[in-house]
């Protein structure tokens, strides 16, 4: 059994309100040297024949809206 790990983030230039809230919360907790936070999702997808092409296909059919998001394959196992 193989697996692919892929991250999905908002594209550069798309405002990330969740990231800003996290940054603001960190500042309120006294961690004030954070310059930027981006919030994204990490999927670990277990499947037979895990390949880059297969993970790209999964991103295209469901995980990514290409208007605002982009993905990066972090790891392919097996």
């Amino acid at each position, binding site marked *: 059994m193989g697996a692919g790990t892929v991250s999905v983030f*908002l594209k550069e230039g*798309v*405002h990330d*309100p*969740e990231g*800003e*809230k996290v940054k603001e919360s960190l500042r309120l907790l006294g961690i004030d040297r954070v310059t930027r936070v981006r919030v994204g*999702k990490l999927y670990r997808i277990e499947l037979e024949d895990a390949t880059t092409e297969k993970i790209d296909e999964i991103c295209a*059919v*469901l*995980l990514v*809206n*290409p*208007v*605002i*998001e982009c993905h990066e394959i972090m790891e392919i196992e097996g």
Partner: protein
Amino acid sequence: MDVCVLVMEGTNNEEETSHSLAAVGLRPQTVCVGELIARPSMLRNYRGLVIPGGFSAGDYVRGGAIFAAYLRTILLELEEFIAADRPVLGICNGFQVLVELGLLPEVKTGDTRTCGPKVALTRNESARFECRPVRLRCENENLFTRGLGAGRIAEFPSAHAEGRLITSQAIWEGMVKTNQIAFRYVGPNSGPAGYPYNPNGSFDNIAGLVNRAGNVLGMMPHPERAFHWYQKTGWTRNKDAREHGPGRAIFAGMAEHIKDQATRSLKDGADHEEG
């Protein structure tokens, strides 16, 4: 006059939607998306389709993404349905589904509709779930809004966390040019809406889109929650003004269109027999 109210796990407001459809003389039938995918031909039994609001599939991945992924398997049947001038209404989460499917806005290359989402409805600028009445200006007169009329400003309840429309300049210009912006949020004195009048930070204050032919409408606010006079803000202080809520016009427009279509097809059938 059967209308399909399409649901899946996490849909809500289907009861209010069905109630609104029945109140304007249509026959709503709740259909689970799984049933429709198993038998796509059943879509031909319906004169209209409504995708209600809610949090389909828990809003996992993105709002409406999983519902849309299911429906993509029967996109051809949906396109046939739309091409036959059957009305399709997506409310809130249903609007997200229509956007994820790439049905709204309608972008064509030549005569062919291009596939995939063209815009996104994503997390509100405030990063919060925003729930309150909003004021909308009707920008486009189509079968759903003919009872409101272009330029009319009306109050609708809004309740969502992912309603911020993001678009490219080119797509936006196309939407304006082809008259696909159905509703915009407006601020005090009918001026441009900043936050909180625009609850989500949507580009150009866009609250709803309609396709070129005017038979597919998606809107973030909820017409089914603005149907009766006692659903309007401040109704306890103004009990004498028993006018329907503005949401009724949307469903009534849909019913009128469906009835016109049925009458036309009966007449065509009769002409055909005579011929």
